[in-house]
């Protein structure tokens, strides 16, 4: 399906439309609700891309939970070539002894998620799992566990539903392949 001249671009090719995404998120919400019933759950949203998915996911859940956010620096934004990854916005809540579900919009190389999991694991949560809307196995460099995934996507650049290009397109209600200029 091709969406011409959207946002003044003709480079967008929808790969998952709004209805497909809603169906998928409904399934995921049900599954997570069943798996975490009766447990002390904290959803950890990874800024910034995951917020759209996180909001819609929680609306499909029917168990109590807490929400918190975390953000880490990435390689593209560093100014010093000798820098290392660090947390730029930490959790406000303590996760020790809690069941933690990390919510990502996309898992591709596994590099940033790998670091995040190592960091969170050191805080001794009761359990630590990962949920992502988009999973790009073809780009994986380090293995990371993905417990709940929406779509297994081939190695293409995607935008929409939280995923951006130059901070644009996050608000699209669908996920589209984007040919970078």
């Amino acid at each position, binding site marked *: 399906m091709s969406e011409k001249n959207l946002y003044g671009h003709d480079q967008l090719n929808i790969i998952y439309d709004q209805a497909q995404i809603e169906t998928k998120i409904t399934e995921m919400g049900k599954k997570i609700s069943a798996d975490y019933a009766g447990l002390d759950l904290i959803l950890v949203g990874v800024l910034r891309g995951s917020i759209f998915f996180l909001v819609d996911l929680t609306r499909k859940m029917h168990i109590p939970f807490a929400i918190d956010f975390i953000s880490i620096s990435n390689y593209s934004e*560093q100014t010093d070539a000798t820098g290392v990854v660090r947390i730029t916005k930490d959790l406000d809540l303590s996760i020790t002894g809690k069941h933690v579900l990390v919510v990502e919009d996309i898992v591709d190389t596994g590099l940033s998620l790998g670091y995040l999991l190592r960091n969170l694991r050191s805080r001794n949560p009761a359990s630590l799992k990962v949920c992502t809307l988009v999973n790009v196995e073809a780009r994986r*460099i380090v293995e990371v566990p993905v417990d709940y995934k929406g779509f297994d996507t081939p190695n293409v650049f995607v935008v929409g539903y939280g995923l951006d290009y130059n901070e644009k397109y996050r608000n699209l209600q669908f996920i589209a392949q984007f040919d970078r200029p």
Partner: protein
Amino acid sequence: MGIITISREFGSGGEIVARFVAEKTGFLLVNKDTIVRGLAEHGIQVPKPNKEDLGAKEQEGQGEGKYIEAMHDFIYDLAIRNNLVILGRGGTILFHDYPPALHVRIIAHFTERVRRVMKTYDLASETAVRLVKEQDREKIRYFRQIFNSNWNNLRLYDMVLNTEKMDFEDTADLIIAAYRIHAEPREVKDAPPPGEIEERISIPQAEAEAEMFMHPSEEEFAHMLDFYRIRWQYEPRTFFLEWDSEGNVVEAFSPDFYLPDQDLFIELTTQKPRQAWKKNRKIRRMKELYPDISVRLIDKRGFESLLKKHSIDQDEGEDGDN
């Protein structure tokens, strides 16, 4: 004084090439033998490691240091009175600051070098592989210890020649032609003054690291692993893939990176997809022969998306992994 320095990988045929260059130019060939003999005439002997007294390690090192100092004086002395072809011995570093010198590196693929060594010295493949690796390691050690420099840094050389498809004598002719052009430079017009060029060239901060990689994409990849605090090793292991009917290794594969925490080998390729099948085939073969070893090929497309996503100086956003 005319100086041509030739550094070579063991089994690349660099010795033969150097001999041809010396014969054709009439330059004096300086190799290990020349130096040992020359120094012996001055009463300086190669220090022998004293194996009986293990406590004398430090003295041993000092002896080695003095010998190397004498060797360097000897080469400089020779160079004042003669035109030289210097084989090995860190010639490229010794005459680095002497612009008329031409610095050449002779290389060949690992399997080809093993094949030649087997033939030349009549060795079994395992012995030849061990010997080639030992010699490579020894050269790296020598450079690091004596010059605090990386032997594999190809930027130390003016030209790098692969002898796999070229006759040794042709290789020598090429070097001589290059030396003549180099030694009698034509006037370059409209070249910007050196200062201007330097301002435009950005020097990599991790120069020391940069020296060990064969390709800029490998360096970038290593930087990215460093950023995410993932431990890595560069080309730590060679896997044999094909043998001929006599049991000689004819194909081998050294993946670019090993990530010890993931127990994973990674091979990067920035080749065009059409050429990538060759590497894909090697990886398939490796998986057949070494099913317990995890190896991952990061292809051009995959790697470009990584670089674009992670590159420092581009104004593009990223697709939301973080």
